[in-house]
């Protein structure tokens, strides 16, 4: 399945759930509402045409106004891939856990919770694991985070 076919397939079958985002180069990037995330993921995984059974990566981003969580999914049988983006507000970001769909998401979500401060609903083990135990300086990956030894470079 080429990218164009995949795009048209998703746009016809997931009209209300996924919206295409032009920012994605090379890969297809879709946006989804935070409330629909788990249902969309389950559908994508079980759709016989797509079979997104492989969870590659989960990354977070802070655009100073919003948080973004990007899920990179792949399908081993169909050899296709897709990115799904969830946009979250800067105040009280909360997202549902997708680890019921892909257990691999567990650690990525923990990491996102720890570094970005995005709370994960229904996560079974939301404990600190990257930063050291006495850490109390906030969420380091946020753009507005600052620390004494952090030197912000001028914009080049």
């Amino acid at each position: 399945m080429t990218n164009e076919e995949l795009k048209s397939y998703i746009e016809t079958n997931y009209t209300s759930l996924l919206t295409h985002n032009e920012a994605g180069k090379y890969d297809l990037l879709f946006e989804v509402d935070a409330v629909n995330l788990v249902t969309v993921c389950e559908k994508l995984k079980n759709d016989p045409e797509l079979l997104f059974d492989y969870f590659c990566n989960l990354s977070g981003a802070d655009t100073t106004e919003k948080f973004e969580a990007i899920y990179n999914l792949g399908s081993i049988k169909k050899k296709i891939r897709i990115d799904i983006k969830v946009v979250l507000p800067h105040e009280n970001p909360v997202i549902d856990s997708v680890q019921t769909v892909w257990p691999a998401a567990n650690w990525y979500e923990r990491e996102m919770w720890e570094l970005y401060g995005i709370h994960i609903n229904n996560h079974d083990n939301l404990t600190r694991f990257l930063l050291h135990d006495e850490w109390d300086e906030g969420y380091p990956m946020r753009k507005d985070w600052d620390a004494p030894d952090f030197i912000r470079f001028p914009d080049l």
Partner: protein
Amino acid sequence: MGIIKKLPIYSEKIPGGGIVTTSVEQILNFAQAKSLWYLLFGTACCAIELMCTGASRYDFDRLGMIFRASPRQSDLIIAAGTITKKMAPRLRTLYDQMAEPRYVIAMGGCTIKGGPFYYDSYSVEKGIEHIIPVDVFIPGCPPRPESLLEGCLTLQKQIQQRKLADWQEK
């Protein structure tokens, strides 16, 4: 070590005792310098170079350096790789568990001053010098095996120049 520590105090007082002190000193220093057993402590990139140094081409063993896994049985920590803030207390514990006399080699930029890249990182300890005292620094990111060998030879020279009187202070 009780007797050896007190040896210089008594032997200096009797005529000709200085010879005894010097020869004991030489023997002890020789023994220590030529059988430095190092603790297998590698955290990051430098650990791979440490492995290479221990393996076929560079052959650490010819300097009398064999790795031991337990801190109780080693004389030397080669701190290879980045020490994060989470790791730092463990490094201190390991150092405390070692028996005297103990030495530390700081291998690579990260252990010297936070490295060429991690000077503004929130989780990396900027140099291990404020965790444990360091005897030899080896710069490089990561240092080549040759420079590690050179560092070890330097440490051996340092050890051979030690005086028995220094032992009392430590």
